């Protein structure tokens, strides 16, 4: 099968190279038939990449260990789902997944926008093809998944940490997010190249950006959930460079999603939007580079990894080309209006943008600083959580407050009196809750207290927006309250879906602040029959159990849990021993109290010869809200993404009008 996969990859490279070169020539010379031919080459590249991917999947399913990649990432004992996940558990497979998603999304984007962007589309094809060229070339020259060997009897298995249900969904969603950001970038570059910098590229890519941003957001949360359940340290985000790799493009894309609204409403921030969409794409590339190059641990490991140099060179090329292109096209990107007041919706968006970009760049600096310090001073200085937490508070808390203020300010300008009247109710609610929390002892962590107060402010502002909007819609017709509410959301899905996403961010902030500021923990060595108490919970050690399995053996400490003398059942924490991988992994016990959104988190650290067990127990208050936030985030995103027939008709009419006038 390997020759089929390799041949498919070679043809993919040929096709995207053709699409890039011939498509570029066709766009430059206005040659329609050549442009269509280049477009077909891009479409065909998806088919050939799909063939290569199918070959690799079949290799995994048939345990074809003559493929080096399959042998290095699976074994005969691996459960079916993880055998499939072996596809993206290593470097070559991940890059092939990148290429598959890229060519698939490119084909869909080109086909769906063929009427909206007749003039800019011929430029979009070569831009997308150039990016695909890079990935196809790397797969062919540096990191092929189709290298063969004399087949061993069994593979070396999969990293035990990756054998978790969340890891089945996390990497594909992450790649959908990363690769999805290629589409708005390519359309933006095509708009610049074709000198058609009007709103069409924004309209064409709005849903692509939103979808990629949603995928990336959900992937980050699933990754956090995986870390929480698998790593066994009781936390969900450790500011690890690989975690930051996904967060940075998400922050840049968040800024972009907000600033495009200013461009649509006021024809402002055109240059800024080009910079943001390029930044988001470059950070997505950088994220892939960080995850796949091995550069994170040491400059020396980077030097040994040839893929790192390829990625760095490509990122440098993209940054240079984009910078030159934006600079050359500056006359086409002039704003048509100015910021009228510092107290206006567009100003609030601008502040939000500055904070988001500052946060993304601060994280970027934290990620690259060890490399810079090792390169300059010879010693890698690790940037730890205190650095990131400081900037998260410095930029995150004002951002939280802005989420409440922004929706309440009118576009263009708002008088002080009008602003004060709008902010009064949320401010009073936040103040009252802040005082109550202070009286209840929440002042032990000032940042958490501020976060809670701001969160109440935002939730009150969102609630007020829904109430006022529903009332206004009801006054326009004889609708019921429910009818008025649904018509309010249906008529402006972006705005009200966005508010639901804001509510998700508030839940996330409450969850993060609560679990990091007010948690409690304890460690103990228990003999059977002994108990320990932490955060109001009492755990009694009943004894250890052992269960052998085909893929792994399970050793568990059985613990009876009670709170205030009331039994709450038995939890089991311990270790898994993976046979093929010869690896021990933690299997934590988590008991969630959904009413309090609180987790009892138990790690069985060591099982001793005298029959005792070393336990680490944490009580993580409000951590459940982080996962609820994920569901709310998804709901808000789906509302925002839902197709709007009215908007489609408006855009179609606009295009028809422009064509009629141009042909007249």
């Amino acid at each position, binding site marked *: 099968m390997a020759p089929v996969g390799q041949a*498919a990859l070679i043809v993919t490279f040929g096709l995207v190279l053709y699409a890039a070169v011939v498509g570029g020539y066709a766009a430059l010379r206005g040659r*329609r038939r050549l442009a269509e031919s280049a477009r077909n080459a891009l479409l065909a590249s998806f088919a050939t990449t799909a063939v290569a991917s199918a070959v690799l999947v079949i290799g995994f399913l048939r345990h074809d260990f003559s493929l080096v990649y399959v042998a290095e990432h699976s074994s005969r004992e691996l459960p079916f789902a993880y055998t499939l996940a072996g596809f993206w558990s290593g470097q070559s497979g991940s890059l092939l997944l990148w290429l598959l998603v890229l060519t698939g999304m490119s084909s869909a984007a080109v086909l769906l926008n063929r009427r909206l962007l007749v003039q800019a589309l011929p430029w979009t094809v070569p831009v997308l093809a150039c990016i695909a060229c890079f990935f196809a070339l790397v797969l062919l020259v540096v990191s092929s998944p189709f290298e063969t060997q004399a087949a061993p009897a069994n593979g070396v298995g999969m990293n035990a940490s990756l054998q978790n249900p969340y890891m089945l969904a996390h990497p594909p969603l992450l790649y959908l997010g990363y690769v999805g950001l290629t589409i708005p970038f390519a359309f933006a570059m095509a708009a610049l190249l074709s000198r058609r910098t009007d709103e069409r590229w924004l309209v064409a890519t709005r849903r692509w950006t939103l979808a990629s941003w949603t995928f990336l957001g959900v992937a980050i949360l699933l990754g956090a959930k995986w870390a929480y359940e698998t790593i066994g340290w009781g936390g969900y985000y450790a500011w690890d460079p690989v975690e930051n790799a996904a967060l940075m493009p998400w922050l840049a894309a968040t800024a972009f999603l907000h600033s495009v609204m200013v461009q649509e409403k*006021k024809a402002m921030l055109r240059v800024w939007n080009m910079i943001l969409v390029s930044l988001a794409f470059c950070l997505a590339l950088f994220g892939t580079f960080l995850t796949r190059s091995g550069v994170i641990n040491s400059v020396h490991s980077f030097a040994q990894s040839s893929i790192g140099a390829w990625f760095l060179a490509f990122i440098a090329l993209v940054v240079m080309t984009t910078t030159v292109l934006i600079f050359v096209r500056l006359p086409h990107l002039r704003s048509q209006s100015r910021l009228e007041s510092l107290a206006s919706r567009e100003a609030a968006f601008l502040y939000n943008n500055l904070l988001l970009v500052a946060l993304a760049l601060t994280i970027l600096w934290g990620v690259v600083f060890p490399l810079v310090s090792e390169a300059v001073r010879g010693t890698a200085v690790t940037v730890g959580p205190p650095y990131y937490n400081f900037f998260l508070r410095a930029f995150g808390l004002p951002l939280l407050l802005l989420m409440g203020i922004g929706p309440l*300010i009118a576009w263009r300008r708002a008088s002080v009196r*009008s602003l004060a009247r709008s902010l009064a109710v949320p401010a009073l609610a936040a103040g009252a809750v802040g005082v109550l929390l202070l009286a209840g002892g929440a002042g032990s962590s000032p940042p958490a207290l501020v976060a809670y107060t701001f969160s109440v402010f935002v939730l009150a502002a969102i609630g007020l927006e829904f109430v*006022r909007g529903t009332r*206004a819609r009801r006054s326009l017709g004889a609708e019921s309250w429910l009818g008025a509410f649904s018509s309010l959301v249906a008529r402006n899905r972006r705005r009200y879906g966005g508010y639901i996403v804001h509510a998700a961010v508030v839940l996330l902030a409450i969850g993060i602040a609560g679990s990091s500021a007010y948690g409690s923990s304890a460690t103990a060595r228990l003999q059977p029959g002994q108990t320990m108490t932490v955060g109001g919970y009492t755990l009694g050690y009943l004894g250890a159990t052992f269960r052998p399995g085909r893929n792994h053996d399970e050793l568990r400490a059985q613990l009876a849990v009670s709170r205030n003398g009331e039994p709450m059942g038995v939890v089991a924490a311990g270790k898994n021993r993976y046979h093929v991988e010869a690896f021990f992994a933690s299997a934590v016990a988590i008991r969630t109290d959904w009413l309090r959104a609180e987790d009892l988190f138990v790690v069985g650290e060591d099982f001793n010869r005298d029959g005792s067990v070393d336990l680490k127990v944490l009580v993580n208050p409000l951590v459940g809200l982080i996962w609820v936030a994920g569901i709310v985030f998804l709901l808000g995103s789906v509302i925002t993404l839902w197709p709007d027939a009215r908007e489609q008709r408006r855009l179609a009419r606009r295009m028809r009008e422009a064509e009629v006038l141009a042909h007249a």
Partner: protein
Amino acid sequence: MMATLAFAVVFAAAAGVFVALPVLRRSSPTRERFGGLGDERAHLELIERRDRALAALKELEFDHRTGKVSDVDHRALIVSLRLEATEALEHLEDVGSEAHLPPDVSQRTRPPGARLVVARDGR
């Protein structure tokens, strides 16, 4: 290596037909080139300006109704917004008449909501 080459030739042949189709197809000379719509960009910007102004008016009314915009702010903003919308409409109508568009096409540049925009003085 030979097997890889053989498969590559098969895939390339199949993809090649699909890629070559638009080039081989007979086409009229008018369909041969694109990019000739020089004025389309300027027209589109005018249409976008008009749509932006009308949408802003609509949003202002809704924000006023919800109490987000005070009466004083509403009065101040509506004048400038109506002027913007009127100017954009007039520009579009000028373009339509310069191009000697038939009345029905010229009328199409004025969307349904445009009736709200009445006078230069903002009333």
